[in-house]
C-alpha cells in the first residue's frame, strides 16, 4: 500500500474539521476538543468497539456508530450529543451497571473506576433495569500472589484480553462462552496461578473497574510497622520515584525521590533504603557473569556455556521464558533481581551490620510491578534462611499508605536514604527504563575491560535508549587491559527488548539463529519498569515517555553514574562478599529457574 496523506473533511457538532484518512471519528472529535466518553477504548490497544459507550449519531445513517471504531469519511455530519445519543449512552451505562457488582464504597478502585465515573455522569438516580448480578455464579480468583480477578466486577470490555494478547503475546486470559455466559476466562477455567500468566499486571493496569486489581499487602505492612518487636526495612525501586507523584497530585514525569523518602519515614518504616543499591550490585554480578561467559565461549570454546546471555531482573520475563522457552533457561543470567538481592542481604549483611536479629526484620519492597509479588513468594528466594522479601507493595499501594497516614505529600521536604544499602548511582536509577540495565552494564563492563569510560558523550549510551520494541547496539572493544586481552577487537553486540510480545519476537530470532548477540536485556513491561503493572493508572505511551525522561534526568543529576563507583557496593565486597561471583555471592545473590507448562 502506498502512503497517501489524503485529508478527509467532516463536521462534528456543526464544527468543521479536516483530518487524515483513517482517523477515527473519536480522534477527529478530540481534535476539536469535543469529549466523547469511552470505556473499552485504550490508547495502547487495538480498537474493540464493544462497549458502545462512545456511540454518536451520523446523520443519514440507520444506526448510531461507535466513534472509536469508525474511520472518518468525506462529508460526514456527526453529532455527539443528540437526544438519541444521550438516551442510548444512558441505557448502555445502566446496562453495564446491572452486570457489575457495585460495592463501590468498599472497592479498592473506588474513585478510580472508569465505570463509576461514567455512572456519575450518565446514570445517577433511580436504576432503570433489573439487577443481573444475582443471576450469575461469579467467581473471585485469589490464587495468584500478584492480583485478584473478580468476575463480578467485570464489564467485558476485553481490555485485559487485548493487553495479554497484543502487548504480551501470552493470552493467559481470553473470552470464553457466549451470550449471558460470556466471561473472561483462562485455559480450561483454571486458577490464574496455574496458567501461563506471568503476573506482569499489564491487565491490572488497564482494567477500568475493580475486576482486576493487585493483591494488596497494605494491612500486613501496617501491622509490621506498628509491631514494636519488628524492624521494618523498605526498599524502593528506581521506577517508583518517577511515577508515585501521579497518584499524589503531580503530572506524569515528576521526580519525587526526596519527598517519597520523607513520606516513607513518616509512615514509620525503620530503615528506608534503595533498590538502586542492589541494582548496582546486580551490574557487578551480572557484568562479571557476562565476561566470564564470554571468556568461556570465546577463549575456552566451552560448548555448555550459552550466549546470548539474557538479563534476569524482570520476574514477568522470567516466568515467560520458563513457560514458553524453557530450553533457553541456561541463557538466563543466574543473578537474582535487584529486589531479591536486596532481600537476601537485608537479613544477612544488613542485619549483622546493624546488629539486628534477622528473624525480627520485616523486609518490604515498593515496586512498579505486580510480578515482584510472585517473585518474592518463589521457594528459591529464601537464601537468608528466611523469606528474603516479606511483602511487596506496588507504587499504587504506597500512594494509598501515604494517604492513609494523612500525609500532605506536596508540602514534604525531601530527605535522603538511610545508610548501608542506601547509596545509589545513576546506573542503578536507569534500571527503571528499557535499555537501562544494558547501559549500566556497558558503563561498568567496558571500564573493567579497558580501564576507560565508555566512548559515549557524558556516558549517555543513546542507542540503547528509547521506546523502539527491539533496539540493537554494538561496541568495539579496544585497548583491553592485560586480564581481558581475549576481548581485544571483539565487537560486543547487544540487544534490548521490552514488552513480552517483543520479547517473543526476539526469542523467535534466537531460535532461528538470527540473533547474533552476546547480551540481551529483556523487560516484561512496555517501556520497562516505568510502564510496570504496579504503576499508577492510567498509562499511555505519552505517560511512559514522561516517566522515562524523568529517569534519565535523575541519572544526569547524580554525582556517581557508574555502578562500580557505588560506595556501599564497594564496602559490601570488601566486608562481606569478597568479589563478584564469589562463593558467598552465589549463595545469596544467584538463583536457578524451573521449566513450566506451556499453557
Amino acid at each position, binding site marked *: 500500500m502506498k502512503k497517501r496523506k489524503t485529508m478527509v473533511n467532516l463536521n462534528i457538532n456543526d464544527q468543521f474539521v479536516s483530518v487524515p484518512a483513517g482517523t477515527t471519528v473519536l480522534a477527529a472529535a478530540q481534535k476539536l476538543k469535543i469529549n466523547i466518553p469511552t470505556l473499552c477504548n485504550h490508547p495502547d490497544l487495538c480498537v474493540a*468497539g464493544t462497549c*458502545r459507550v462512545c*456511540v454518536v449519531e451520523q446523520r443519514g445513517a440507520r*444506526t448510531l456508530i461507535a466513534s472509536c471504531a*469508525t474511520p472518518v469519511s468525506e462529508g460526514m455530519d456527526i453529532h455527539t450529543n443528540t437526544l438519541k445519543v444521550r*438516551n442510548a449512552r444512558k441505557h448502555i451505562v445502566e446496562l453495564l451497571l446491572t452486570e457489575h457488582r457495585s460495592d463501590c464504597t468498599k472497592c479498592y478502585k473506588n474513585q478510580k473506576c472508569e465505570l463509576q465515573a461514567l455512572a456519575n455522569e450518565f446514570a445517577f438516580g433511580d436504576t432503570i*433495569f433489573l439487577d443481573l448480578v444475582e443471576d450469575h455464579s461469579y467467581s473471585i480468583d485469589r490464587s495468584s500472589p500478584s492480583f485478584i480477578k473478580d468476575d463480578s466486577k467485570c464489564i467485558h470490555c476485553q481490555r485485559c484480553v487485548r493487553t495479554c494478547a497484543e502487548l504480551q503475546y501470552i493470552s493467559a486470559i481470553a473470552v470464553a462462552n*457466549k*451470550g449471558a455466559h460470556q466471561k473472561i476466562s483462562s485455559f480450561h477455567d483454571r486458577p490464574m496461578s496455574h496458567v501461563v500468566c506471568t503476573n506482569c499486571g499489564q491487565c491490572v493496569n488497564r482494567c477500568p473497574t475493580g475486576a482486576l486489581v493487585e493483591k494488596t499487602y497494605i494491612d500486613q505492612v501496617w501491622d509490621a510497622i506498628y509491631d514494636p518487636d519488628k524492624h521494618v526495612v523498605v526498599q524502593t525501586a528506581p521506577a517508583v520515584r518517577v511515577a508515585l507523584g501521579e497518584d499524589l497530585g503531580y503530572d506524569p514525569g515528576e521526580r519525587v525521590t526526596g519527598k517519597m523518602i520523607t513520606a516513607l519515614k513518616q509512615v514509620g518504616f525503620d530503615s528506608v533504603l534503595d533498590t538502586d543499591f542492589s541494582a548496582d550490585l546486580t551490574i557487578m554480578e551480572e557484568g562479571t557473569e557476562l565476561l566470564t561467559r564470554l571468556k568461556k565461549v570465546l577463549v575456552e570454546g566451552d560448548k555448555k556455556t550459552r550466549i546470548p546471555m539474557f538479563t534476569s531482573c524482570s520476574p514477568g520475563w522470567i516466568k515467560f521464558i520458563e513457560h514458553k522457552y524453557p530450553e533457553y533457561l541456561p541463557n538466563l543470567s543466574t543473578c537474582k533481581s535487584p529486589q531479591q538481592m536486596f532481600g537476601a542481604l537485608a537479613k544477612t549483611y544488613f542485619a549483622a551490620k546493624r546488629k539486628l536479629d534477622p528473624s525480627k526484620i520485616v523486609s518490604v519492597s515498593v515496586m512498579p510491578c505486580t510480578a515482584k509479588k510472585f517473585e518474592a513468594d518463589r521457594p528459591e528466594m529464601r537464601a537468608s534462611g528466611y523469606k528474603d522479601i516479606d511483602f511487596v507493595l506496588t507504587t499504587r499501594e504506597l500512594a494509598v499508605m501515604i494517604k492513609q497516614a494523612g500525609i500532605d505529600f506536596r508540602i514534604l521536604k525531601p530527605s535522603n536514604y538511610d545508610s548501608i544499602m542506601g547509596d545509589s548511582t545513576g546506573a542503578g536509577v536507569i534500571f527503571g527504563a528499557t535499555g537501562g540495565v544494558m547501559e549500566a552494564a556497558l558503563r561498568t563492563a567496558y571500564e573493567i575491560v579497558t580501564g576507560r569510560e565508555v566512548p559515549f558523550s557524558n556516558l549517555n549510551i543513546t542507542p540503547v535508549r528509547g521506546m523502539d520494541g527491539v533496539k540493537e547496539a554494538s561496541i568495539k572493544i579496544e585497548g583491553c587491559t592485560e586480564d581481558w586481552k581475549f576481548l581485544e577487537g571483539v565487537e560486543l553486540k547487544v540487544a534490548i527488548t521490552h514488552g513480552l510480545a517483543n520479547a517473543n519476537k526476539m526469542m523467535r530470532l534466537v531460535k532461528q539463529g538470527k540473533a547474533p548477540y552476546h547480551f540481551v536485556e529483556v523487560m516484561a513491561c512496555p517501556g520497562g519498569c516505568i510502564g510496570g503493572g504496579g504503576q499508577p493508572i492510567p498509562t499511555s505511551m505519552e505517560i511512559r515517555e514522561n516517566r522515562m525522561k524523568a529517569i534519565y534526568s535523575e541519572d544526569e543529576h547524580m554525582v556517581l553514574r557508574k555502578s562500580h563507583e557505588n560506595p556501599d557496593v564497594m564496602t559490601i565486597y570488601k566486608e562481606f562478599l569478597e568479589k563478584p561471583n564469589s562463593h558467598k555471592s552465589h549463595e545469596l545473590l544467584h538463583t536457578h529457574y524451573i521449566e513450566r507448562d506451556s499453557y
Partner: protein
Amino acid sequence: MKNKGLNKVDLIFEKVDLKQVLTKAFKMSNDEIIQQVLESGLKGRGGAGFPTGLKWKYTAAEKEPEKYIVCNADEGEPGTFKDREILDRVSYKVYGGMAIASKAIGAKHGIVYLRGEYRFLLPQLMKELESFHKTIDEIGYNFRIRYCLGSGAYICGEESALFESIQGDRGEPRNKPPYPTTSGVFYKPTSINNVETLVTVMMIIKHGAEAYNQLGTKDSRGSKVFSVSGDTPTPGIFELELGMSVLQFVNEFGDGDTKAVQVGGASGFCVPRKKFTDTIIGFEGVPTGGSMKLFNSSRSMYNVLHNYLDFFAEESCGQCTPCRVGCQQLLKGVEKVKKGEAKSTYLNELVKLADTMKIASKCGLGQSVGNAFRTIVENFREEIIY
C-alpha cells in the same frame, strides 16, 4: 391494495444443465455478469437483503489479487430450513452460482461455511463437489471450492463472525467498515452470499435478468423459498413469487385459526391477524430470509416471545453491551412483568431498551432483537402481562 397474489414458482429446484449455464456465464465479461445481476434486482436471500449485484461490483472493484467467494450455509435462523433442502437437492447449482460469482469478482477460491448441524449432508455434498470440480475443469475454468464447518453458534451466520470462524478465531462480529467487499475472510476482499442467492444467480444467467424481473414487485424482485412451520397443515418448503400479502399466505398455509405469523424468524417481525391484509411479504413490508411461522389461538405469545429472548440471551456473542446485557434484561423483564413482580409499565422501558439495542448494537443480531420484541409486545401486550 392490489398485489400479485400467491403464485407458486419452480426456479430454485428446477433441474438445469450446469455445464451449459456456466459456459454461457463464462462467455460473458465480468461487467456483463454483474450488470445482469444488478438488472435482475436480486437482493440477498439470507434476510438482510443487500443487492447482490452491488456486492459483487464492490468486490470486483478491489485491486487486491486474492479474493474470495463465500457461501453462507450457516442457516441458523429459528424456523428456516430451506438452505438444507437446497443443498440436499441441488448443491451443484450452489457451486455453479459460486463459480459465476468468482468470475464476476475475480476470485479463485470459494468457501462454503456449512452449519455444524448439517454435517450429515457433507459426504454427499463432497461427492457432488468433486463432480462439479470436474465439470469446471472440462470447461477450463480455474476455481476451487472447499468446505468449512460451523460449530453451532448462531452468531457465526453473521458475515464477519463467519469469517473469524473460518480463520479459526472466536466467532465474533467485526467493526464495520471495512465491509467484507474490502476486507472479508483472511482480510481479503470477499463476496459472501446466501445459498439461495447463489442458486438464484444461476437461474438469472440461464433465463436472463429481464425474465426474472417479471416476477415479484419493484422492491422485491423474483421469487423466494419459504420455510413454512408452526400451526399449519402443510409445513415444508415452498417457492413463492414475492409480493403477496400475509393474508394470502395465511389463506394458503394457515389452519383457519391463525392469529399471528412470525415473518423472518426470531430476528424478524410478528404480524398479528389485524395486519394480515395490509402487510406485504417482501422488502416493502416485512422482509424474510424464508422463515414463516404460523401461530393459532392455542399459542401464548408470551411463550413465543420468551422463547425468542431466551434464544438471543444464549446466542448473543456477548462482546457488545447492548446485545449481551440487553437480551438478558428483556428476558428477565418480561418474566418479572408476567409474574407481577414488575409493573406492566415496565414494558415501556423495555421497548425503549429494544430501540437502543436496534441503533447501538455492533451487529445485526443485537440490532434485530427489537423487531420481534416490539411487534409482539405492541400487538399482544395483554398476553405478556396477564
